[in-house]
Each structure stands twice: as structure tokens, then as C-alpha cells.
């Protein structure tokens, strides 16, 4: 009788601890996801400035600039729509377009001398990195959250306590970011 009571008591204590741990992790996951959002917003805000700054010097690259502006508009729209797959796809396109712009600026040494452009480039690069790192952090946290749920014996109780494995931030299979950039070396 006492043995049974002790075992049940221990089980209850263990359940409380497990539950609290999982709640903590769940909130960390949510917070990490918000972080990615913040970075994406920041990128949207920076792009118009950059495009304005390089417009004069890069008038021969109208197409590229155009595509950056369009990709940004699409990404902002997707963000307001709130469809996760849509956001992923559009943000991927924007990353692609920006990468192209970055590569092209190499052809314009004059641009590097312009203080505003240099500052904006650094800002955008750090934002790109921050997006990357916040995704990485999100995935690390999600992995920990999921592992915590799936290990024995927590796996028998996790669903009962109302926890579900969170989704990792992955690129969709048909994402533009997966495309290998084509290099054309013909003159």
C-alpha cells in the first residue's frame, strides 16, 4: 500500500517536472520563431533604401533591381497572408534576387566607394546572416524540444500532456533556394 503510494507520488512529481520542462522548451520554440520573423521584416525595410542608393550607378542592371523590388513586394505580401509555405517560397526568391544583386555590385567598383552603399551592403549582409542564424537557432531549439518528447519514457506521456513535435524550418522541395546557380562563362 505504502509502496504503491510512494511509486504514484514519485510518478506525479516526475510528471510535473517533465511538463514544466516541456512548457519551457515550447515557449523557447515560439520565441525563436518570432526572431526569424523580426529579421525578415528588417530585410524588407532595408531593401528599398539599398535599391535607391545603387539605382544611379547601376542603371544597366535594371532587370536585377526590378526583380529585387518585385521579390520584396511578393515576400511582404506573403508575410501578411500568413501562409507558411508561401512565406518560405517568397523569402527564398528574395534571397536569390539579393544574392544576384550582391554579385553584380562587384562589377561596379565605384559603388564600393560610396559610403551609403557600403553601409547598406553591410546592413543587408548582417541581416542575411541574422536570418540564417535565427533559423539555425530555431532548428536547434526545435530539435531539443522534439528529442525531449521522444525519449523514453517521456514519449508515453508527451501527447497526453498536450505536446506535439514542432516542425523544423526547412526549404520546400521546389524552393528556388535549392536551385544550383548556373554559371555562364561565355563572353
Amino acid at each position, binding site marked *: 500500500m505504502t509502496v504503491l503510494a510512494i511509486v504514484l507520488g514519485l510518478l506525479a512529481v516526475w510528471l510535473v517536472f517533465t511538463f514544466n520542462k516541456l512548457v519551457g522548451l515550447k515557449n523557447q520554440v515560439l520565441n525563436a520563431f518570432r*526572431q526569424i520573423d523580426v529579421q525578415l521584416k528588417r530585410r524588407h525595410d532595408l531593401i528599398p533604401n539599398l535599391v535607391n542608393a545603387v539605382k544611379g550607378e547601376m542603371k544597366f542592371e535594371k532587370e536585377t533591381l526590378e526583380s529585387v523590388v518585385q521579390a520584396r513586394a511578393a515576400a511582404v505580401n506573403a508575410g501578411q497572408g500568413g501562409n507558411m509555405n508561401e512565406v518560405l517560397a517568397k523569402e527564398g526568391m528574395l534571397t536569390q534576387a539579393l544574392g544576384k544583386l550582391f554579385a553584380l555590385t562587384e562589377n561596379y567598383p565605384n559603388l564600393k566607394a560610396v559610403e551609403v552603399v557600403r*553601409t547598406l551592403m*553591410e*546592413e543587408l*549582409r*548582417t541581416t542575411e*546572416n541574422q536570418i540564417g*542564424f*535565427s533559423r539555425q537557432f530555431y532548428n536547434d531549439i526545435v530539435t531539443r524540444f522534439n528529442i525531449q518528447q521522444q525519449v523514453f519514457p517521456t514519449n508515453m506521456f508527451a501527447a497526453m500532456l498536450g505536446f506535439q513535435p514542432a516542425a523544423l524550418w526547412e526549404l520546400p522541395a521546389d524552393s528556388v533556394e535549392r536551385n544550383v546557380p548556373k554559371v555562364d562563362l561565355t563572353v
Partner: protein
Amino acid sequence: MNIYEQQETNRRTTMVLLGAFLLLFLAVGAGFDFFYLSFNPIAGEPSYKLNSAGYYEAHNARPQMIPYGTIAALLFGIAMVLNSVFNGPKMVLRSTMARRAVSTDPDEKQFINVVREMSIASGVPMPGTYVVPDPDANAFAAGFSYDNAVIAVTEGLLKNLNREELQAVVAHEMSHIRNYDMRVMTVAAALMGAIALISDFAGRSARYGGRSRGRSSGGGRSGKGGGAAVLILFVVWLFLVILAPLFSRMLAMAISRQREFLADASAAELTRNPMGLVSALEKIRSAVQPTQAINNGVAHMCITDPRGSLIEEKSGFAADLLATHPPMEKRILALKMMAYQKASA
């Protein structure tokens, strides 16, 4: 070992460290009490005997019951630790003449950005960013909690490293903050200083004061055999006092070296790019001149020993005991192994 277990280990290490230092303080303080301030709780009541001259002479003079020396040593140690906890980062920054990084300078703006990136990657709040005016390449982190943590780099580092390498160095410092290494090292450094001062004081008293008690009463306390035992005890205590700074230094350095390896590994985990840190370390290593602005007290917090001493390059016994950082060779090798693992996986 993930970062939470790591933090847990570090908390435990801090406690063990505190315990070890507490014992040292107690030993030094209690010895001082016993030998100089006649503190002796186990002595009996003084007895009075009629001597040949016709008056009463006291044997076992009334002992002094309050261990002033021990209390003073402990209070001093606690004060040093508290001081380093609350003023640590400020004192370190002032001693290195560091100034806040300004966002108008492109190099420093990049540094601030990189710190923000790493704070996102590690999930730690953004620490303060400081620049030390020194042409040598070095960096350090300080701070007892996430809130008052700072990362400082030298101007030389900003000038010589590219973005990727700077990111690796900042990641290394960020890992120190994230793993609570600063806690262990701050406490260790403060106690190391306290022990050095106290043992210096006690040692001087031994040299100039002599054992007032033993001499004046001619061993009258407990007869001849007891006197010899007390003498042996005194010699042992004196050795302890002389060696205490060395012990505490070896203890602190051992912990410091282990932390460095760990921070390198965590940095690679944060940037997912061990080779960035490898090339940064190689650049820092080739700049052998000592970092003038950073003094010995901060050495254990830096990414590499600021004294520019070649002890880091050796891997002999003495270097193993006294260096603050593992040999550069070993650190680079460990990082390269991580890179190969990544490549083959």
C-alpha cells in the same frame, strides 16, 4: 554535452572551486589565529600554581576565543568575490582602456553587427560591445550574468581579420558568456588575488613578527613534546601559506584551459564553420607582439594569452600547469578535426 548540461557543470565547478578556496582561506586564517593571536578553543581553563618565588604563575594563559584572523580572511575573500561580481566588467574595461564601439566607423559597425548575429545564433541577449585601442589582435569577454556581459576586441583585430574570422572570434567569446565560463573565471580570479594578498600578509608576519607566543612562554603551553608538535604544525602551515598562491593559480589555470577548448568547440557549433576560427587563430598567432593594453589579470579571459609569451606554444609539463590557454597547436588541430568530421558526414 549540450549547453544546459554545460552550464550545469560550470555551476558545479564554481561551487567546487569556491569550496576549495574556502578551505584554503580557513587553513591560512585559522593557522594565523593559532600561531599569532593565541586562538585556541580546545585549551582548558588556565591553572595557577604557586612558584618558588612565592607568587602565583599562570599556566595555560587564558586563550583568546574569537578567531579574528579566520573571520578577517573569510570576509576579505567574500568582499573580493562580491566586488568582482558587481564591478568586474567595469573594472576590466577600465583597466584595458576600452571604449564603446561606435556605429559610425565601418569596421566597428561590422563588429557590432557580428556580435548581434552571434547573439541570435546563441540565443543570448546582446552583450555590450567595446573596442580596446591596441594594435595587437586579441579579444575578451567579461560579465557575471547575461545582462552585464561585454565583449571587447582590439583595434588590431578589427583591422586584420575579415568578416568570417571576426565572426569566429566573436562566437568564441559569446560561448564563454553562454556557458557561464565568465562566472567560474571571475570568481577564480578574485579568489586567486585574495589568496595571494592574504598569504603575502601572513608570510610577512611570519618573517617579522616571529611566533610571539611560543617564544615568550618558552613552550610553557604544553610541555616539550607538545612544543615540537606545534613547531611541525607551524612549518606545515608556513609551507601552505607560501604555496597557496601557486596552488590556487594552478587550479584556476586548469579550469581556464578546459574552458578554452570548450569555447572553441561551441564557437564552431554557433558558426557551423570551424575553419573560420582556425584561420583567425592563425592570424592572431602570427602577431606575436604582446597586447600592451591588456594586463595579466585579464589574461585568462582573452582568446589568446595577451602576454605574447611562448609558453602557449610549448606543451610540456610546466606549460600544462601554468598556461592560461592550451597550446595554439592543439586548439587548431582540434578545430581542424571538427571540420573534417563535418566534411565526411
